[in-house]
């Protein structure tokens, strides 16, 4: 049973370097990651944290090398972006959990968010990338920073950079790191197990159907390309263009015309259609969740002003007067 036969030209049975090299690389990467994180986590003696960081970096390198070998092809450069973004994400992620001061952690987290946005773009989810940066980095993490500012004590004059002890020392770093990376090792093994041929990205070839749901756009594109008269229209059947998937032509008032070259349904459009056509209900629910969260947050965080007795009585009267006023 071999885990990764892909890309091993030699006949089956002859151990290919990939067969035993890859597992060692992978587990080595995980082990390095574990040791590095354990060391890097906030501890009394900061020196070790640096060494930890380096070890983790080497771990990420090993992982990259392993992934590269698993891919088995020579072409290195074009996929460089993936490795850059991955390295960035992991490094800043590690730095986030190992940095003693919470503000820096938050900022590092923003860096991770940006890296993963990059990855989203690589995966063809541009809308999500931007959504991520706007909503996530922009809104949520700013709230985090806001709360961090609110919650961290103003530094007492005495020690300038006093780090409260609950930030300074991690809880059982070794045991947590070990557990975490055993988890990672098992996850990766499971992923690679039996995946003889790791499928590459598929080419998106059913662009026609996606476009069909936008008849006006096709019509405008056809008119620009001159395939049909400016007054001709695209036949639509209750809002969907009459598109023949087999011939790849759309029926217009002047007969079936092939789609213009290079006409693509961009990610945002298809995503929009998918969102509203396939998951209308979930949108509503998402809306409700947000509403509830907002309500909850305001209620929770309201400052409990403890009024004394007569103040409460006055308040109650005031409210009563107020309600009569607008009743009348």
């Amino acid at each position, binding site marked *: 049973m071999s885990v990764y036969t892909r890309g091993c030209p030699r006949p089956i049975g002859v151990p290919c370097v990939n067969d035993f090299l890859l597992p060692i690389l992978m587990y080595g990467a995980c082990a390095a990651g574990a040791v590095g994180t354990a060391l890097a986590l906030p501890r009394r003696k900061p020196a070790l944290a640096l060494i930890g960081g380096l070890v983790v970096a080497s771990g990420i390198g090993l992982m990259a090398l392993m992934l590269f070998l698993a891919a088995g092809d020579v072409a290195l450069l074009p996929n460089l972006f993936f490795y850059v973004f991955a390295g960035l994400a*992991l490094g800043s992620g590690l730095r986030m959990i190992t940095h003693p001061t919470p503000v820096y952690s938050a900022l590092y987290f923003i860096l991770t968010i940006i890296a993963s946005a990059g990855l989203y*773009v690589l995966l063809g989810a541009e809308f999500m990338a931007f959504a991520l940066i706007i909503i996530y980095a922009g809104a949520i993490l700013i709230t985090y920073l806001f709360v961090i500012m609110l919650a961290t004590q103003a530094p007492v004059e005495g020690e300038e950079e006093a780090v409260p002890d*609950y930030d300074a020392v991690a*809880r059982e770093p070794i045991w947590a790191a070990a557990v975490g990376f055993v988890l990672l090792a098992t996850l990766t093994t499971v992923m690679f197990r039996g995946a003889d041929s790791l499928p*590459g*990205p598929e080419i998106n070839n*059913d662009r026609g159907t996606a476009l069909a749901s936008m008849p006006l756009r096709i019509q405008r594109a056809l008119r620009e390309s001159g395939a049909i008269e400016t007054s001709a229209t695209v036949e639509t059947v209750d809002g969907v263009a009459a598109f023949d998937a087999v011939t790849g032509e759309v029926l217009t008032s002047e007969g079936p015309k092939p789609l213009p070259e290079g006409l693509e349904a961009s990610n945002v459009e298809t995503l929009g259609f*998918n969102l509203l056509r396939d998951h209308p209900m979930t949108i509503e629910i*998402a809306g409700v969740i947000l509403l509830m969260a907002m309500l909850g947050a305001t209620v929770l965080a309201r400052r409990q002003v403890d009024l004394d007795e007569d103040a409460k009585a006055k308040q109650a009267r005031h409210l009563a007067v107020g309600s009569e006023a607008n009743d009348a």
Partner: protein
Amino acid sequence: MLEVLAQGAFAEPMASITLAHYLVLSGAMFVLGLVGFVTRRNLIIMFLCTEMMFQASGLALVAFARYSMNLDGQTFVIFVLTVAAAEAAMGLALVVLLFRKQESLSAEVWNQLKG
């Protein structure tokens, strides 16, 4: 230009970046978040680590969406985002409340519920 990037315009079968790459990456990010959650005592950092885990799962979802040519993954990431946002809001409100109560952000202060 974006499409080129997205599709990996190079000729077949340059299947360089496979689904496993992304999954390993998201796994690593998830584990980082987990380790962070378990080890750091600061409440806010713990929340941050949960956000990291959300992020990791979002990445995996998008990777799956891309490699199985189905946009549901992406829509789902949107919901992951909404949930993350809601959770962050609530969580931070709670942290503020807790902080105001105990004047400390350490998680170990709150252990009255012990057995």
